[in-house]
């Protein structure tokens, strides 16, 4: 009796995430008259690592913030585990947040707290864990991103930019969330450390069964951590496919982006820079 219900429950559990852990449909967002997102459609199945690439200022960070509910999209729908998240009330939103872990582009560390307190913040304040237990977990997560124990007692202002980024990463994964968001996890890191971080992201996805949505400009990192790559341009996803297909696509935008050529169909970045 119980086994059958368990099985059906398991099946359901499998079916919903299989269909999608995270799904964006026609998400639009503008700031005053400036249209940043013009209808983003994206699907991330359970356990997959999707990497979004795209030019600077194309709205990648804005997209992540919309998913997290930090910005309110003007239109569209964002589903997590098959449930609509737009217009959730504060309590449901807070519950949903427990599934998420986010690394901000600028690290966004709490500058009045020590490093280990930063990493343990979600555990202690968000989940009510005991401080000592949380500290042990924090130090373990810090070790995983290549920071030793002494760093734990420093303050964010005393760290280099790359170290701050790694603390942000440790903080994002500290509570083993189901869905991880990484906004440029490897920018500002040396190539070796970047690879350590890549490995950490892969490990989080493969071993912990997390789903990851990352943003990066670093193509080496993208190739390494992605199962699927999506390219955003002018507020839309213009290409989406497995990593293997990246080099064989006939999409000119993607081709220009991954080879980093100044000439090509993507001109607005260059126009802005000039």
């Amino acid at each position, binding site marked *: 009796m119980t086994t059958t219900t368990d099985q059906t429950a398991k099946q359901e559990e499998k079916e919903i995430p299989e269909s999608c852990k995270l799904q964006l449909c026609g998400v639009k967002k503008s700031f005053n008259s400036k249209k940043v997102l013009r209808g983003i459609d994206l699907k991330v199945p359970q356990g997959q690592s999707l990497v979004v690439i795209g030019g600077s200022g194309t709205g990648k960070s804005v997209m992540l913030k919309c998913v997290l509910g930090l910005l309110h999209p003007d239109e569209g729908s964002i589903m997590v585990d098959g449930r609509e998240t737009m217009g959730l009330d504060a309590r449901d939103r*807070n519950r949903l947040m427990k599934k998420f872990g986010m690394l901000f582009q600028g690290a966004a560390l709490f500058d009045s707290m020590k490093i280990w307190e930063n990493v343990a913040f979600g555990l202690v304040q*968000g989940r009510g864990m005991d401080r000592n237990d949380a500290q042990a977990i924090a130090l373990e997560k810090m070790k995983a991103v290549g920071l030793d124990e002494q760093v734990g007692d420093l303050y964010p202002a005393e760290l280099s930019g790359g170290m701050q980024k790694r603390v942000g990463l440790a903080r994002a994964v500290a509570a083993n969330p189901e869905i991880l968001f990484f906004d440029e996890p490897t920018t500002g890191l040396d190539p070796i450390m970047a690879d350590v971080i890549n490995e950490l992201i892969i490990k989080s996805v493969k071993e912990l069964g997390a789903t990851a949505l990352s943003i990066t400009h670093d193509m080496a990192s993208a190739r390494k951590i992605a199962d699927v790559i999506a390219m955003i341009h002018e507020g839309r996803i213009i290409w989406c496919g497995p990593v293997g297909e990246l080099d064989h696509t006939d999409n000119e935008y993607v081709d220009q982006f991954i080879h980093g050529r100044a000439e090509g169909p993507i001109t607005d970045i260059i126009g802005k820079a000039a």
Partner: protein
Amino acid sequence: MDADTKHDRTVEDCIKNCKPVTDYVLDSCEAIGHTIVNLFLAVGRLAMFMAQSVLHVFLPPFFPRLIGRQLIDIGYYSLPVVGMTALFTGMVLALQSYTGFARFNAEGAVAGVVVLSVTRELAPVLAGLMVAGRVGAAMAAEIGTMRVTEQIDAMVTLSVNPFKYLIAPRIIAGTLMLPVLVLVGDIIGVFGGYIVSIYNLGFSPGNYLTQTWNMMETIDVVSGLVKAGVFGLVVAMLGCYHGFNSQRGAQGVGAATTNAVVSASILILIFNYILTQVFFS
């Protein structure tokens, strides 16, 4: 030929740019309307913010550590400022009222004037203003910096509600600590008046103290403390509100800080009038 067309153009432009008088009237109406609508918007937003903050003051989870830290920060560290303000205010009050009352041979009223002015008005208002400058500004700057560096966003993603973690402790501490500060200020202010009266104006200590004691009623002190509680709430609320809604980098944080202090100071003066009316009329 060229000159002619140029001339024509300027005349045409002039006619085009010339608006009828009604346009100016409408323009000014629009400006006034805009201002009023914006005022209502701002008041509405502040009211929503207040409702949300007060709600989170009473709903768990609570953060006793943070409340404790804010109590010390607002209460203990404001003591020197408030104490100095009260001391010199009491002293100058004794001096001034003496010169005034001496003309009517009513020097005996000095003690009463000092104690009533200090407990009813000066201690609460001056302490409120000083704390607005010291604490309100700090709150706006701190929370504003957290906003523009995405620390508040990060807090939300770690499922900690910033209203509970950042704002509620400050509001609790502000509302509780300002009355305590004012009570201390009352005592120091009256003491300041006493010092000047005894050592400078030649009053007898016993007489001065009896007069003070006889003049003072419970309502004088209590009304001052109630005012202080309201002012504490105002300072903390506006400090947090402006910080929380701060925009655009360092400049935005600067503007938030200024707005927090100015708006809190003005609201303190307005509420002071309203509360005086409520208590004493």
